[in-house]
């Protein structure tokens, strides 16, 4: 359904931050994209949804195909029209609008007003916490509340493929669970997902397949449970040492073995 073929992304003709990434998401599949900070995950997502143009980025080479047609150079709204929705990092809510208006805007592409209302109700019942916030001005919401809003908003536009940048960021444990049960629900309903996530333990529960990015390259990939068993992933993303014990943050060694993956 979605296929990236060694994509390279350059910012302002200078910073090469994605160096030949190839990945694929097939229909109804949910794929995790792990990786350290600055690995280029968000950039990859932006490259797919076309939102890099706004930041002087462009796909320098390689191909991005969604259901057979190329997304490269397509305007972001056209990309959305073809069924791909992108939840950006950094809590980009429409700050002056109420939660409810935000949700409505999310449903911009829906056929009719009735359709919109039905969809809204569905979202509100999925995320009951939002119901009470309906009439709040979204700019004033707490970090986590905004995060919830973003996810819910993206659910409005019944996408075929969701690109989600760090859904669990800043969420309290039980919210994280809630969100992920929600995502697995969507997956069950056949929505494909490409999830960028730092909270590996959470994402690997719903992921059919996973990639690990490092320095702009894919350095490791495999089925969800495979990755969960990979020692390096366990140490650096799940935070359990080889013996399966969770390491204490207080006893972190000053000169630890740093893993740098060979791409």
């Amino acid at each position, binding site marked *: 359904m979605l296929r990236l073929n060694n994509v390279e992304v350059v910012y302002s003709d200078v910073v090469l931050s994605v160096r030949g990434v190839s990945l694929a998401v097939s229909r109804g599949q949910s794929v995790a994209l792990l990786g350290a900070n600055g690995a280029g995950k968000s950039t990859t997502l932006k490259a797919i*949804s*076309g*939102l890099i*143009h*706004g930041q002087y980025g462009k796909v320098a080479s390689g191909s991005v195909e969604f259901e057979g047609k190329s997304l490269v150079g397509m*305007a*972001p*709204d056209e990309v*959305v*029209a073809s069924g791909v*929705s*992108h939840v*950006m990092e950094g809590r*980009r*809510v*429409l*700050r*002056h*609008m109420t939660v409810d*208006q935000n949700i*409505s*805007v*999310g449903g*911009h*592409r829906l056929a009719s*007003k009735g359709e*919109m209302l039905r969809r809204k109700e569905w979202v509100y019942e999925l995320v009951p916490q939002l119901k009470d916030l309906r009439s709040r*001005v979204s*700019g*004033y919401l707490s970090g986590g509340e905004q995060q919830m809003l973003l996810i819910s*908003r993206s659910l409005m*536009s019944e996408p075929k493929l969701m690109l989600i940048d760090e859904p669990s960021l800043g969420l309290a444990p039980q919210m994280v669970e809630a969100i992920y049960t929600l995502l697995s629900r969507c997956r069950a309903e056949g929505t494909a997902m490409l999830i960028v996530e730092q909270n590996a333990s959470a994402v690997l529960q719903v992921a059919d397949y996973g990639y690990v990015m490092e320095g702009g390259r894919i350095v490791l990939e495999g089925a969800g449970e495979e990755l969960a068993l990979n020692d390096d992933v366990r140490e650096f993303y799940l935070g359990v040492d080889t013996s399966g014990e969770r390491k204490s943050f207080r006893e972190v060694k000053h000169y630890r073995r740093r893993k740098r993956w060979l791409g």
Partner: protein
Amino acid sequence: MIDFLNYAVLGILTGQLYAIVAMGFVVIYRASRVFNFAQGELIVLGGFIVWTFVMVFKLHPVIGALLSILAGALVGILIERLFFRRLVGRSVFAMVMVTIGMIILLRGVMLILWGAHERQFPAIFPLEPVIIGEIFIPSPLLASGFLSVVAALALHHFFNRSRAGLALSAVSEDHEVAQSMGISVRKSMALAWALGVSLSIVGAMTYLSGKTLTYNAAEIGFAALPIALLAGLESIRGLLLGGAIIGLIQGLTSAYIDPIFGGQASAIVPYLFMLGVLLIRPTGMFGWKIIERV
């Protein structure tokens, strides 16, 4: 007393005329965060378009007026095509600057198309005043009062009730997010400019009806500014009140202060009043508050 009433009424109505012009600013700003400095030139352009339809093609003023408004919409779309299309997602600064470039560009184009000499502007509204009791009201002013109210209510509904309006608001908040919601920023901007220019045409008609058409008309763009700020750049209904207040103040100043003062106090009173209000309410009477949150 009757004098005072006259001054008050005329002042308020003149304020409504400015309000229409200000609406041109606000609609464009409200929908794309672009503040259009070329508003004044658009008024002049509007004037020339109406003039051409009515004086050159010899159409009946009303028909000419309606056609001009359509033409205005087309001009708006053209402007978006030529200038703003490629600037989507770029800094607002650049876009605002483009409007400044447009000032000079439009001026040049109009000079070439229509030349520089003064023209008689057709009387779209009858030259005879409307006389209510002892109050003499020039019909263009009365018309502007009426039109501003109609336009304001219609636009208010459009922006706050309709889905398209909601989309425009989204665009004005954040181009990127809007796009990621599948809203076409380009279409929205085109719509905004179409509305903006059409309004300028209405403004031009009420402003110039039965008077003369010269490039000085561009001045009104900045005369209308205090009203837009007073109301708050996002508020459309606010313009009615803003226009009324500024118009009243300006009218009374020119009636009672100027003669004593022996200068054009009426020219800066609006600015001073606006400054005062903004110092108390930094985003005008009805503008969006600045959201501060960490």
